[in-house]
């Protein structure tokens, strides 16, 4: 009989704390962050770790998120393993630096506790912040449990610091719904985490013996090629991310793939969802099947670059795909940004399903299990019926 591998016992952590623990176990050298709801407890916990001597890192108290990412970027370019966390207005305020970080190919990892954007002011959850930042050249993950957040931060550094990648990574999870909800999380020891993701600093790091100029002006004759390098670096990411995830599974006993298809066997309709909505949908789907709705869940985990091959593989035989968006792309053909993207993919790959775009949960509008069932029914009915316009689920007349 084969010996059973003994895995560690879980401890209760919120997703924010799980992220902070991951950064600690990765032995990050520099943290520059500004507290913003609902991300605050990530950096609170990290400052506690630094103050208690559990983590030997520089904690830079900056006056804004623009500075937070600037300092993180500078630290990363100087050869440090740098971490930051943000949400909502903070992510928006970082926008300029998001492009600088990806343009300079800094292997930064940042967690995003996704939250609605002003105006009007809402501190509650939706994904407008992250969807507004999706074209900034960062690798983007969505995670649906605290454990996955912990594990993904570890995988993210391995990916970001890979010499063929060298791109910053965002790990997104739902504000409050996940950031402030306690779940059982297995926390690994630093030694094995560092063995899995050893520090590989930026190759052109600032070094007086090998002077380089970082961030010069680049004329039209050269700029395009440098941007194309970013395109090519992204291309190899899905394969690499999958490989890292597999290895993670072998080491720690947990793996996720880069796109998950849940209850897909025999499903005629699929719902595309991410983060907490994917988790809730998972709990609702068995009831849906009992009601005769053969609906599966396609959970987005790696979102940038989009795992096209996986998506095509999962959706080539279904009649209906319903996309739940938690952000609005105002005035777009489909007003859910993700649905819009999948519409493009449907044309590109000549996929035969009926596409339905549903916007829901804006500003953390409550979504109960019945609402998820109703959306599953909508996905089921869309096999034989087209919804050309975006459905704004739950909005009052």
């Amino acid at each position: 009989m084969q010996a059973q591998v003994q895995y560690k016992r879980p401890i209760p952590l919120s997703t924010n704390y799980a992220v902070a623990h991951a950064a600690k176990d990765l032995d990050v050298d520099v943290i520059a962050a500004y507290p913003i709801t609902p991300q605050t407890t990530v950096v609170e916990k990290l400052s506690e770790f630094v103050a208690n001597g559990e983590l030997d890192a520089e904690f830079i108290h900056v006056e804004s998120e623009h500075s937070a990412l600037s300092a993180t970027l500078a630290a990363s370019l100087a050869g440090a393993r740098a971490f930051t966390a943000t949400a909502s207005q903070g992510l928006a305020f970082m926008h300029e630096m998001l492009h600088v970080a990806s343009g300079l190919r800094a292997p930064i990892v940042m967690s995003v506790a996704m939250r609605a954007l002003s105006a009007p002011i809402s501190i509650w959850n939706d994904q407008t912040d992250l969807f507004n930042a999706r074209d900034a050249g960062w690798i983007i993950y969505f995670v649906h449990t605290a454990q996955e957040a912990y594990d993904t931060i570890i995988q993210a550094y391995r990916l970001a610091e890979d010499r063929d990648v060298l791109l910053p990574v965002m790990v997104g999870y739902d504000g409050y719904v996940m950031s402030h909800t306690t779940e059982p999380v297995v926390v690994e020891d630093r030694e094995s985490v560092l063995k899995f993701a050893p520090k590989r600093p930026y190759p052109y790091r600032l070094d007086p013996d090998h002077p380089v100029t970082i961030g010069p002006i680049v004329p039209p004759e050269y700029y395009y090629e440098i941007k194309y390098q970013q395109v090519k670096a992204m291309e190899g990411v899905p394969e690499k991310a999958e490989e890292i995830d597999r290895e993670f599974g072998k080491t720690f006993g947990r793996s996720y793939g880069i796109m998950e298809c849940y209850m897909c066997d025999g499903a005629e309709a699929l719902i595309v969802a991410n983060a907490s909505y994917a988790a809730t949908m998972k709990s609702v789907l068995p009831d849906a099947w009992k009601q005769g709705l053969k609906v599966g869940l396609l959970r987005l985990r790696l979102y940038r670059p989009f795992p096209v091959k996986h998506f095509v593989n999962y959706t080539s035989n279904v009649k209906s795909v319903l996309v739940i968006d938690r952000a609005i792309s105002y005035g777009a053909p489909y007003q859910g940004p993700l649905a819009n993207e999948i519409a493009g993919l449907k044309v590109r790959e000549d996929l035969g399903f009926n596409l339905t775009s549903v916007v829901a949960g804006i500003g953390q509008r409550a979504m109960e299990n019945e609402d998820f069932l109703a959306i599953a029914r909508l996905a089921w009915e869309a096999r034989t019926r087209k919804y050309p316009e975006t459905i704004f689920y739950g909005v009052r007349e």
Partner: protein
Amino acid sequence: MSVRLPGWKEMAIGGIIVNPGNSLEYKTGDWKVLMPVIDQDKCIRCRICWYVCPDNAIKELDKPHTTKAKRVYKISYDVDYDYCKGCGMCAQECPVKAIDMVPVEVS
């Protein structure tokens, strides 16, 4: 003759300059329309053009010059056309109008 520029595989990531001091290879004066020409006879060596040039493109040379009126100067002024952008500041400020701005001939 056109220069072959590097392709995306040949360039350092992020536009990072990995060979320090390579700005010396980069001539910034290739886009002027008018170029200053100094008349060494009219020039009174006041040095104003040297002072006002925003690009340090006026060179003070240890090169003696004797004018037609037999006046002897120990130095001369010349223009470094690799860096002169043809702004005309020198010609504008020259008190004796010794600098002409003439069209650049493109071959």
